[in-house]
């Protein structure tokens, strides 16, 4: 639980959407599978709270970055699967570029040699 708290505090605005879009780019997933996929990809460093994920998915649906459909999972359960749209891919591309610039800026600042 402590790690969840720290992750939530440390994520910058838009980071969750970015990770969701990137994960969905590989293949469509339902909410629970998304949580698991992000957790696994980050080697358990990131744990996505359901309280953040579902409102974020609604925002992304509203923006048209993802679309959702109801289907039956491998376990026979009715699930709502999300997949990224062309608009979402465009947004992902732009955000990745901005994120790269931001990281580069931070890296340069941190790389300054102390006097």
């Amino acid at each position, binding site marked *: 639980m402590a790690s969840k708290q720290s992750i939530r505090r440390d994520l910058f605005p838009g980071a969750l959407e970015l990770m969701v879009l990137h994960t969905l780019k590989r293949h469509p997933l*339902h*909410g629970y599978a998304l949580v698991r996929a992000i957790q696994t990809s980050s080697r358990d460093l990131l744990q996505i709270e*359901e*309280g953040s994920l*579902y*409102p974020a998915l609604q925002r992304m649906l509203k923006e048209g970055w993802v679309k959702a459909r109801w289907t039956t999972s491998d376990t026979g*359960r009715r*699930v*709502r699967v999300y997949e990224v749209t062309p608009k979402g891919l465009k947004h992902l591309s732009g955000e990745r570029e901005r994120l790269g610039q931001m990281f580069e800026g931070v890296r340069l600042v941190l790389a300054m040699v102390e006097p």
Partner: protein
Amino acid sequence: VNLFERLRGRRDVDRDLTDELAAHLDERIEELLRAGLSREAARRQARSELGNATLLTERGRDVWRFAIIEDAWQDLRYAARQLRGAPAFTATVILTLALGIGPNTVIFGAIDGLLIKTLTVTDPLSLVRLRYAGQNQMAMSRNDYGASARDPSGREVRATFTVACLSTDDRSTCRYSDRNATAGSSGDASEGFEQSASRIFRAQVGLITREIAADSRSHCALSDFSARRPAAVSV
């Protein structure tokens, strides 16, 4: 997207979110069961991790709430632009609406006043209707009754009234009683009558009873008539 579809969309958002969170919970419970937890412990932990499902649904719905308002505003502006661009069509629409709404409003107002609204008196259904029918003491029909009384100056006045009931049911059968009438002053007045309920517009009754209240003779005449529930007779 029209308003109906938007409202239906909102219901869909609620239903989808509720179902989605339930599915999420089930998935988590399954996983915890596979990890060796008892069903009860798994359910408890899964619920604890998910948090307040109702709150989550509301937060998801909030995302769309402003979208609905924004869409409605956009639709309104679009409609206004379209109407401005077609003045002849706009005039026709406005005229049609005016002709449709205006008479309907008037007719409804009349029906409401005459048939639906009751008078603001205690037990309006027990009101009786009195109609002044001249001073010739002639009863022109079974419903016309002569009445005798004194006006405030003490002069005996005679008048003929028609009595009917304000009611649409059988409860308020009216009875005429001549116990207070001036004895022998009118042959008609000595006869009692009982009349079953007549369907009379209530507004009409109200109007007439108010007129009677302003008329001293009519006011006196009231003492000659009594309804089955005289205490409820209001003028």
